[in-house]
């Protein structure tokens, strides 16, 4: 049944249906509504979870790490500075193969301080060994949590997962959401079955130190699990679509791309604006399409190659910048298309919450088709002076 819900509250409901046993989180804008809602659910026995009110995001993820190692399904949520504070623990969770699931309500990183949206926070953790899924709207943001738990806890994967959705643009926006029931979620997401756990009946050691004789093999094993996720995510997405009718069987999603000359590549809520802009451009005869990335880690190399095979121009919208280089998405797309003659133009856009309108998307396409790109879009020259 469709309900009009704030993004944060929809996600909190979905997380509740995933039956987390331990939740540890710390307030930070624009994530706070999620953990407030979960605290309220715990206080009213709507969820059966230990809720730890930690003193920092660093401890939030550390507590999740401990609880996961002890055999519980865990949940946390954060954004921006909070995620930056978790940096060390993020690498640890992945290295210890603990399937923690965390919502990232994407927000810019300071300085200067900004509470508004871009994707610099999660992108900056791209090398940490977490699966990264990005949602376009609140429906997808809720559904991806069910998917994330199922994939992360799969014994072929055993990796932690970010479910990323844009701060304010989604988290604070009311949209119709088709919320699954507890029974439906239980049918899709089996109870957590830890591969190993801290247990006095069967004592094992977690988190040993590895000499140069062993370290590389651990890293390789994580990377192999990431590679397996390229098939396990679509597999779980297919089951989801068969059960509930919404299709998440692809690591990417195409919109009017079949006969497109110019392809826009993007992640997150901006895809909604892009689709509208594409409809407008199509109405005046411009053959433009969208390739939306649902997964950024693992990066869907084959899907990107296949989807962009027939286009003549690619414009990538990056809500992040790897300072001193380019946007992270464009670098990956260019790598995927290496050896082809398809030009890939990068546009750094919407940093720190700057609004993007349909006419901006049209302008980006015009730039790319004129052979211009690898630039920031929408800089205010008068501020730079």
């Amino acid at each position, binding site marked *: 049944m469709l309900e009009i819900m704030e993004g944060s509250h929809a996600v909190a409901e979905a997380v509740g249906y995933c039956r987390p046993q331990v939740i540890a989180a710390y307030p930070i804008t624009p994530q706070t509504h999620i953990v407030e809602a979960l605290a309220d659910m715990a206080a009213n026995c709507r969820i059966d979870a230990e809720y*730890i009110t930690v003193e920092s995001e660093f401890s939030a993820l550390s507590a999740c790490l401990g609880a996961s190692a002890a055999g519980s399904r865990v949940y946390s949520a954060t954004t921006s500075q909070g995620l930056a504070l978790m940096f060390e623990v993020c690498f640890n969770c992945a290295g210890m193969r603990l399937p923690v699931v965390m919502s990232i309500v994407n927000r810019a990183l300071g300085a200067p301080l900004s509470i508004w949206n871009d994707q610099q926070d999660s992108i900056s953790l791209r090398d940490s060994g977490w699966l990264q899924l990005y949602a376009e709207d609140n429906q997808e943001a809720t559904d991806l949590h069910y998917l994330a738990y199922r994939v992360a806890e799969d014994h072929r994967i055993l990796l932690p997962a970010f479910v990323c959705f844009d701060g304010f643009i989604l988290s604070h926006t009311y949209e119709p959401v088709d919320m699954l029931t507890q029974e439906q979620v239980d049918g899709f997401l089996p109870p957590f079955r830890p591969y190993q756990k801290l247990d006095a009946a069967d004592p094992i050691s977690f988190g040993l130190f590895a000499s140069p004789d062993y370290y590389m093999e651990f890293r390789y094993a994580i990377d192999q699990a990431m590679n397996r996720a390229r098939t396990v995510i679509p597999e779980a997405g297919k089951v989801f679509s068969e059960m509930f009718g919404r299709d998440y069987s692809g690591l990417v999603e195409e919109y009017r791309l079949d006969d497109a000359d110019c392809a826009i590549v993007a992640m997150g809520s901006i895809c909604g604006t892009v689709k509208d802009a594409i409809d407008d451009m199509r109405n005046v005869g411009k053959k433009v399409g969208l390739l939306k990335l649902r997964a950024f880690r693992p990066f869907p190399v084959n899907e990107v190659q296949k989807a962009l095979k027939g286009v003549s121009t690619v414009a990538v919208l990056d809500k992040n910048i790897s300072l001193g280089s380019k946007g992270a998405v464009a670098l990956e797309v260019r790598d995927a298309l290496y050896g082809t003659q398809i030009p890939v133009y990068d546009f750094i856009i919407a940093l720190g919450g700057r609004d993007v309108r349909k006419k901006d998307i049209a302008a980006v396409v015009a730039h790319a088709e004129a052979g211009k790109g690898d630039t920031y879009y929408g800089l205010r020259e008068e501020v730079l002076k």
Partner: protein
Amino acid sequence: MNDEAACVLFDSGHRACGGCAAAMAARLILDAAGKDTIVVSSTGCMEVFSTPYPETAWNVPWIHSLFENNSAVASGIVASLAKQGRKEKVIALGGDGATFDIGILCLSGAFERGHDFTYICYDNEAYMNTGIQRSGATPYDASTTTSPAGSCSSGNPRPKKDLPAILAAHGAPYVATTSIAYPPDLKKKVEKAVRTPGPCYIQIHAPCCTGWGFEGEKSIAIGKLAIETGLFVLYEMENGVVTKVKKVVRKPVEEYLIEQKRFRHLFKPRRNDAEIAKIQAIADRNAEKFGIDIKLKK
């Protein structure tokens, strides 16, 4: 191992230095806590010498995550066990650097929240794993690699942080200090801490032969001298009140200092009476504060 009595919970074959008090502490802690214990170690000497992959000295469930987060990891484990209805005891173990300095945020948070676990600090009074740098637990005038004695320095310029008092102020039901030189005292206090509901803290004075500069066979003797001079006091605090103190016939601090290279600069090239007197004054204040002096009848 089937024979429980023969099961050594902290096993031999690890890579600690000969005479390492931290290794002795680990064995005594588990002797006291028993096999139904989950240990959370912070990064440090003990973690490194006991768990070089693919080996481990731990015959209880053991986890190491990071340097500064053992209290937070323990919080999560305690919550998870509670949800599962499991009864294992949880001990977080850290050196003084992990405990006094980099991990104090997590430690304070976990104690304020009142999780049922025991935090044990093996206090060897400096960052030993990285090569003897000063920490908040390093005593006044100790020479370390980041507080070296020199022509215009007599070593560490600050006294030891009073961490037991800080944790008692969090409302911890049981806070105790002990020493590797007094194994029955150590075991008794660990037993009491793991039995006591809520967050408990034990600080184990653990002389480091490598870092302090003495021969490994002297670890116990040096540990005893710390207590006998009043520079480290053995006591228990229950709900913020000191309930038990080990009394001693006090020896001059010089007897303790002169045995260790970290205080050598107080005696060579020439004796520094002024600094030795300051250290004696620290011991005198400890003695007065805790009432440790046994008055001998004349």
